[in-house]
């Protein structure tokens, strides 16, 4: 096969510019949302006793943490989809949700409480949480992996990791919504 002929063929195919990753990822996540919501409704909607919404000043913080994780992971994964960017330049964004949650824990510890510290940290539904969040994240993960496959990442493993983090962030955001009872 001659290279100049391949070039001619590629030029003949020039008008088929593939869609950019950003819009594809956005559409994919939007399509995954109803699937995750349906899973959420069928599992937690039927059993409102599983979770009792904790009404305290730190309730909203959950959303901030999970959305910060999803947002940071989306930004990093879109950068990683380009071959010439490095993880070192953008990876620090992923520390953001960790910083927020550390600040939240620190603030929470300054307040008077009756329950021991460890049980406040872990909560009452740790098992349900551990099982539900990956389940709700699965549709988002599928969408993210399919979209990022269109990229040209020089670090496929890291790109896969950020896809997992963004799916986990979105899944946990859904989990943080109190059950409709």
């Amino acid at each position: 096969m001659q290279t100049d002929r391949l070039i001619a063929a590629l030029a003949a195919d020039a008008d088929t510019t593939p869609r950019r990753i950003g819009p594809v990822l956005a559409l994919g996540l939007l399509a995954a949302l109803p699937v995750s919501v349906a899973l959420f409704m069928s599992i937690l909607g039927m059993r409102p006793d599983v979770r009792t919404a904790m009404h305290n000043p730190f309730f909203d913080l959950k959303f901030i943490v999970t959305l910060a994780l999803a947002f940071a992971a989306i930004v990093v994964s879109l950068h990683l989809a380009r071959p010439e960017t490095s993880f070192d330049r953008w990876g620090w964004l992923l520390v953001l949700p960790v910083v927020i949650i550390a600040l939240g824990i620190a603030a929470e510890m300054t307040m008077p409480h009756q329950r021991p510290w460890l049980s406040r940290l872990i909560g009452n539904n740790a098992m349900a949480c551990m099982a539900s969040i990956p389940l709700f994240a699965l549709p988002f993960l599928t969408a993210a992996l399919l979209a990022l496959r269109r990229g040209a990442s020089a670090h496929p493993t890291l790109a896969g990791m950020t896809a997992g983090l963004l799916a986990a962030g979105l899944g946990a955001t859904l989990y943080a919504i109190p059950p409709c009872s």
Partner: protein
Amino acid sequence: MRGRDEEWTCLMRAANAGDAAAYRRLLEAVAPVLRAATYRGLARAGQPVDQSEDIVQEILLAVHLKRQTWDATAPFAPWLFAIARNKLIDALRRRGRRVFVNIDDFAETMAAPAAGDTLSPGEIAAHLDGLPARQRDVLKSVVVEGASIKETATRFAMTEGAVRVALHRGLASLASKLREP
């Protein structure tokens, strides 16, 4: 190098705006540079340099199919060389298990052969037979034999649109075949 880089960036911007002639000029301009770099890379890794044309073609195919990941506000050359570097690494990994004899040092200073010198069927062409019949026929006609879209359409009694679709799908399947270990 600076003037060259700016020219490439301008050509790629024009190509993204639908200028197939600019796209072809760009690919023709980068091919010799890729050839020389691949040649050097193979020589440095102690691999036979006669495979360089296969790798150049693989890089061009990846450039074509991943060009949406190039950010039009950034220079083109770093993106191109990131793709080229990753494809060369992929190719070296695929050949990793074979035993090779180190080639002489003079190979490193040899000029890259001009385009069109390779008459061997090559690795990419070997994958053509694994494609669906229509994609294979169109690719063989356009890429191997150098026929135009119009000639190919007449030969297979297809519309030009159908030839374009088969060409695009064929190029994409070829790239995914090359990614398989």
